[in-house]
């Protein structure tokens, strides 16, 4: 039965009570913080937030696969883009998925957007020893729906490896190809016609795919987009009504 000392609706304290918290390691020798090979980004467009990422996973100079999904649906109104060590990042996504649903079902209400943003910050802080050893660093992006305004508005957040959270006004990017992406997004938001924030869905999908094509020209660890070889990005949209996945077929159509 429910213990009184547990925080109501908090899945991590339930795991702690049952001694099931994912293994944490103690800090070892300090190592430089490095982001891992990946490019993920999010930007506001006319219908909400578009979050996209390449599908490449690398180990050193080896391409492991070009089929990884780095944009993960956490719940009906939250998206996570992972950049960093996959083992840690996927575990964080799993913890968040279970935590958000656990809270919703047990407390009979959805977790607020600020609480979701902080839940991810808490996981990053808990991961500090792995980050400092340079073997478990994760630098994610998060998109969630602010339901305190009408109509609900999608917001983008980015983090540093230690768990500090920042709200992005127009866009955010993470991973080894993010420098290229941020430069283009900054230029386009300032001088573009249309600006990314004014783009309709078709234009935004085409734009996101082209961003990844350019990033992959400068970063060997970023998988590009190539309709001829059926290589596409992972693209998801968070709008006032929830999440929509832009399938490979849709991307192919938009890129014609």
């Amino acid at each position, binding site marked *: 039965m*429910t213990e009184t000392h547990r925080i109501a609706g908090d899945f991590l304290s*339930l795991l702690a009570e049952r001694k099931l918290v994912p293994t944490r390691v103690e800090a070892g020798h300090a190592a430089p913080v490095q982001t891992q090979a990946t490019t993920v980004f999010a930007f506001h467009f006319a219908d909400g937030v578009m979050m996209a990422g390449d599908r490449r996973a690398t180990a050193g100079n080896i391409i492991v696969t070009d089929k990884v999904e780095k944009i993960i649906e956490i719940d009906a109104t939250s998206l996570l883009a992972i950049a960093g060590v996959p083992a840690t990042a996927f575990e964080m996504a799993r913890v968040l998925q*279970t935590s958000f649903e656990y809270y919703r079902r*047990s407390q009979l209400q959805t977790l607020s957007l600020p609480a979701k943003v902080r839940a991810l910050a808490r996981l990053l802080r808990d991961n500090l020893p792995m980050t400092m050893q340079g073997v478990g660093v994760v630098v994610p992006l998060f998109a969630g729906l602010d339901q305190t305004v009408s109509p609900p508005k999608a917001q983008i957040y980015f983090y540093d490896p230690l768990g500090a959270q920042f709200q992005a006004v127009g866009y955010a990017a993470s991973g080894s190809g993010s420098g290229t992406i941020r430069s283009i997004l900054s230029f386009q938001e300032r001088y573009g016609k249309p600006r990314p924030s004014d783009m309709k869905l078709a234009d935004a999908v085409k734009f996101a795919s082209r961003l990844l094509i350019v990033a992959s020209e400068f970063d060997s660890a970023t998988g590009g987009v190539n309709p001829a070889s059926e290589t596409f990005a992972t693209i998801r949209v968070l709008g006032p009504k929830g999440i929509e996945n832009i399938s490979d077929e849709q991307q192919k159509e938009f890129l014609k």
Partner: protein
Amino acid sequence: MTEEPYRWLEAVGNRRDYVREQLKGGSPVFAASLPEGILLLGVGSGQSKVFEIFDRQALAGLGHPADIEKIRQAAIDAAHTESFTRAPEDVSLRRLVSFGVSGQLKTNFEQLFTAPFLIELLLAEIGSTPEHDLFFRLHFDGSFQSHTGGIVVCASQPETESAAQKWLAEACKGKKDRGEVANLLLQAWWLLQHGKNFTESMPDEKERQSGWRSDAQDKTVEVGWLSRNSSRPIRYQALTLSELDL
């Protein structure tokens, strides 16, 4: 007193009578297996009676709200822990009931110096076909019966529960529309609430229809829907009467 076996048996018997007496008048809940999903229905006066437990599992119950809440929370804790340590696909109603909440209820019932749980519960799990839909009728003392498909009623008295279930099974035969089935469940709810019988002398449909509509005016009709063919892992959604054209 309880060190003497016959007195222990007497005390357990008294406890059973006490719980049954307390549950008298509780508002019954229903579940119906349909081609497109499972419909759960309950009528409450303020407090909720139908709940989502996990991706494919839901619960409906009658009794003391605080006791329903304790069992609901225990089921949610067990389901999410199982999902996290193994996988969402490993969460099964059979294991939740038989190795989880049933044991807790039995232990509580036999501890004579603690307050007993005042509850009767109905749990449902959506399957790939209606024949694979699974229901559990879980009682206050931890005993339970499982059913596959069809219609299950959870009422405070076993005799009327059985009669209502038999009548609904016949009345809902061949019906696929969830609004139509919900309407019949609400008619059965009205009959049970008013102690009407389910024989040929039962009130006609017109009276049953106006009866439930009149009684439900100052109450909350809760409808849960477990969808069979959803592309998302979470199958549960709460429905309103207007979504069922009622």
